């Protein structure tokens, strides 16, 4: 063995390379009727993970979609290999929180990324999430539509107004230390996600908000990455009166209990 010119650098670089080799990112994709979108999101995930060189796995949690999402997922598993694509289907539609718990049981990564499978969250941001996490050793990194270059596509004025208004109200009442409370594109240290999920009881939009509010309560550190949110390409995206009422209820519950 020869002596390297600069042993310190060599050791450091090796250490860094080790870290990179050890870190593994498990992407949880809860799906319900996403036959059209699933192959596309998986293709994009594979593309950006291969380009950035991080170790990963994709865990698809299909809640008994009647449209054949699971068959498509099985085909994808054949194409990309069962070490990269894991299928953890469930019989019927259950809550998002339980989907994360279910998926996490099978996650072998030390980091978990959660995102929507409907293409509104673009996998190109994942390398940015990972870099952000490493930069401050954050416990969780949240995508934000409300800061920097973040934004949305496909929203009319009404939708923007409701979104900004709801966000402002939540910020005033909860002071959560994160700008996007209802976003669901996030990276967690696995043990952080585990401890948060078991505490969170809300449903729908409020679930994501509760996750970040509880994170603040437990003194976890939060990093943010601006993301562009492109509203559903295929399928419907709705924001009706019911959603608004349940959001306000959830907000007030958090206000009174956290």
């Amino acid at each position, binding site marked *: 063995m020869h002596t390297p010119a600069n042993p310190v650098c060599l050791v450091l670089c090796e250490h860094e390379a080790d870290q990179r080799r050890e870190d593994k990112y498990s992407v949880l994709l809860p799906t319900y009727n996403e036959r059209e979108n699933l192959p596309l999101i998986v293709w994009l995930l594979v593309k950006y993970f291969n380009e950035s060189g991080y170790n990963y796995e994709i865990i698809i949690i299909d809640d008994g979609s009647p449209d054949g999402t699971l068959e498509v997922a099985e085909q994808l598993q054949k194409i990309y290999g069962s070490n990269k694509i894991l299928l953890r289907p469930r019989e019927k539609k259950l809550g998002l929180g339980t989907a994360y718990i279910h998926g996490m049981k099978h996650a072998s990564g030390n980091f978990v990324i959660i995102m929507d499978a409907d293409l509104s969250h673009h996998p190109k941001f994942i390398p940015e999430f990972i870099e952000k996490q490493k930069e401050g050793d954050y416990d969780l990194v949240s995508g934000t539509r409300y800061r920097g270059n973040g934004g949305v596509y496909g929203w009319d*004025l009404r939708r923007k107004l409701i979104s900004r208004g709801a966000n402002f109200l939540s910020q005033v009442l909860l002071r959560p230390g994160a700008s996007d409370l209802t976003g669901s594109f996030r990276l967690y240290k696995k043990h952080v996600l585990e401890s948060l999920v078991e505490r969170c009881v809300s449903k729908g939009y409020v679930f994501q908000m509760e996750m970040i509010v509880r994170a603040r309560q437990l003194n976890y550190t939060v990093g943010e990455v601006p993301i562009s949110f492109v509203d559903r390409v295929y399928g419907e995206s709705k924001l009706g009166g019911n959603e608004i009422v349940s959001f306000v209820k959830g907000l007030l519950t958090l206000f009174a209990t956290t």
Partner: protein
Amino acid sequence: MTKLLQWLLGVSLVLTAWALVSFDLLELSLPPAYREMAWPMPLYLLVSFGCYSLATVGYRVATFNDCVDAAKELQVQIKEAKADLRKKGLKM
């Protein structure tokens, strides 16, 4: 302490200070000018908070980024992905 309690605490502190001055509860014999200034204060505070809220939300709605390029990029990538997946044998 929950956020609700923090708010209640804050509001009651402000209200107490306001009541002390505007009704001169401690009989400090403050000049009447102080009391006249103090009594409409809660209303002023509410109105200015309302204005601040409206202005903030309005400004943020107006400056909400429209990610047109991101949507275009996605459309291009969808075509690319479909072609590649078909080549790999996916039946869509």
